[in-house]
């Protein structure tokens, strides 16, 4: 596992909803991995080398535009990394940055990087909040959505989590999030990895960790079971 690097893109902007604890948890699971924070004013690590994981968390709407502008010159490099199987984890509205476009209330479009086949539409005065239950390779995935947008994928899009209960990419879509190779993008926000041990194991594998073990495994597992039980009883 030595030599693993986790690149966190623009943590000074992409840090809403406690999502950076996804990275802190990965660091706890992989104590030898090196975390590299790339500020918006700096050159991303992925330009020179392929990190074990590239992470980007949720951000404000104005920040989305700054981040898109920053990443635009690296679009081709990002496409290469995706095709080569580099692991990516995008949570919350970070997914939209890599999408085709974000439509605003006035109908104007903010073009995204075009690396994920979906378009998003904002409605700033109507925030969507929900609890989500989905499936990840036969294990239940639980998470929270709190967002101003809904998204519409193209037909070729590969979903990440099939919906068991709750709202997917939009109220009619059968899956939540998108996947391309080892790129995992989800609107679920917060400590997604701390909340879903099964999914976290897959991320660790995608990063190249051999026989990955989870930090605080028994507590993480019991907290997950308690949440899932609560969901089935109450929701």
């Amino acid at each position: 596992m030595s030599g693993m690097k986790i690149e966190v893109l623009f943590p000074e902007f992409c840090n809403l909803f406690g999502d950076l604890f996804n990275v802190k948890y990965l660091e706890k699971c992989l104590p030898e991995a090196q975390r590299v924070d790339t500020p918006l004013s700096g050159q991303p690590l992925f330009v020179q080398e392929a990190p074990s994981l590239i992470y980007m968390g949720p951000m404000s709407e104005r920040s989305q535009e700054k981040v898109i502008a920053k990443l635009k010159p690296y679009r081709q490099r990002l496409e290469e990394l995706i095709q080569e199987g580099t692991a990516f984890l995008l949570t919350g509205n970070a997914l939209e940055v890599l999408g085709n476009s974000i439509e605003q209330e006035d109908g104007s479009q903010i073009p995204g990087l075009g690396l994920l086949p979906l378009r998003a539409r904002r409605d700033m005065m109507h925030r969507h909040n929900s609890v989500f239950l989905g499936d990840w390779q036969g294990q239940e995935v639980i998470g929270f959505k709190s967002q101003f947008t809904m998204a519409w994928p193209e037909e070729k899009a590969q979903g990440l989590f099939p919906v068991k209960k709750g709202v997917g990419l939009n109220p009619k879509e059968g899956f939540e999030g998108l996947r391309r190779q080892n790129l995992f993008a989800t609107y679920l926000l917060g400590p997604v990895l701390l909340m879903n041990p099964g999914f976290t194991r897959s991320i660790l594998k995608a990063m190249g960790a051999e026989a990955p073990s989870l930090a605080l495994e028994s507590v993480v597992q019991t907290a997950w079971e308690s949440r899932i039980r609560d969901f089935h009883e109450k929701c």
Partner: protein
Amino acid sequence: MKKNFLFYLALLASKLTMACLRLLGRKGTNLPGGVAIFLCKDFLGRMPRPKTVVGITGTNGKTTVANMVEDVLEQCGRQFVCNKNGSNVDTGVASALIAESTLLGKPKKELAVFELDERSSNLTMPYIKPDLLLVTNIFRDSYKRNAHPEFIVDILNRYVPDGVKLVLNADDLMCASLKPGNPRAYFSLDPQPGERSGGENIVQDVRVCPQCGALLEWELRRYHHIGRARCPQCGFGSPQGDYRAVSLANGAMQVEAGGQAFSFPLPNTSTINVYNALSAVALLREFGLEPGEIAGAMERTAISGTRYLEEEAGGRKVILHLAKGQNPVACSRAFQNIRDYPGRKAAILFLDDYFDAAHTVENISWLYDADFEFLTDPSVTQVIAAGARHWDVYLRLLMAGAEPDRTAHLLDPEAAAGALKLEEADAVFILYDVYTIPLANRTKERVKELMEKEGEKNERHEN
């Protein structure tokens, strides 16, 4: 907006609703305002406003400050209408105005003081058009309602009318930058002797210059983004305070304003309450009260016991401390207060959202924006998490570095006091949300019983 038929119908219906509620012995409800707005959507715009309207908004502290301002005005003999007994959204404001108006809607008082929810400013500000508006601060709050601070800043910039005189926190760059064209007065707390610069908080929502995007340099970062910052690239920085608390001593603050210095008593000396008191002083001075009047009245004001209360039993302290759930900054402040409180402390955490705990699985993301790390200080001898999400709070504590043998967690909040290891603590903090005040009070009584028993046991042992 002119009064029309719908307005009079709504006013009549709400007055009748109010009369019925009074007959039933119910006060402080938003129902009359809700009825009025249901029948006449722009009721607030058509309702005649008192001659002067003072508004108090912001993420944290607005209820405490509104209570303080109202207490001072009352003690200074001012008559006013306020929404103290109702909510701080449009229906609460409408209910208050309806209650203090004639049958035709004419205001009975010339002054109104309203606590106003910042998120729903679109429903209140354009209609009531405050003459004077205090914004205490802008922080992350409930993700569900408030999303993120930039969203709240945009709402305030859009819906606070031009020309409203603002009283703003100079030590909060987001707050200080609101409505740049409006007249304003700033309040600010000077760096205090021995004050450490923070940097310990997870949430820091102002990292780069709002003008040019360069990384800010901090002269003092008190907590989160509260402090004094400057941009090395374009020179933008925290504005100077018109009301500067220059020193804090003996339960009072020395405030310099307009070249003069005045002393004001502090009901509580924690930093957030110094900011609360300072913002109240700035607002009341801008309103026109004399410093002596304000100081005299503040001598007799106290922070509401539902927000902070210390009691003693068996030689130990039990402290009720409000920590609004789903508000990571409010909880972080409470956690830091626990760490900074003298002696050895235990803490009982009731952090679950009352309604979510009953009906759904609460979004626990906010736990990871709150600084549980303060609770891993060696002076905190035990942390007990109780409620539906106790496993999640326990996991968060472990992620913060808490020792498992110093933590306990259980489903039943009523049993939390029983998990205390009292012999290790000089004080027990109980953290609770606004909807769990009865639970906190019951727990406080149980803790006091245990403290008294422990005190008697120690006394017998000594004899």
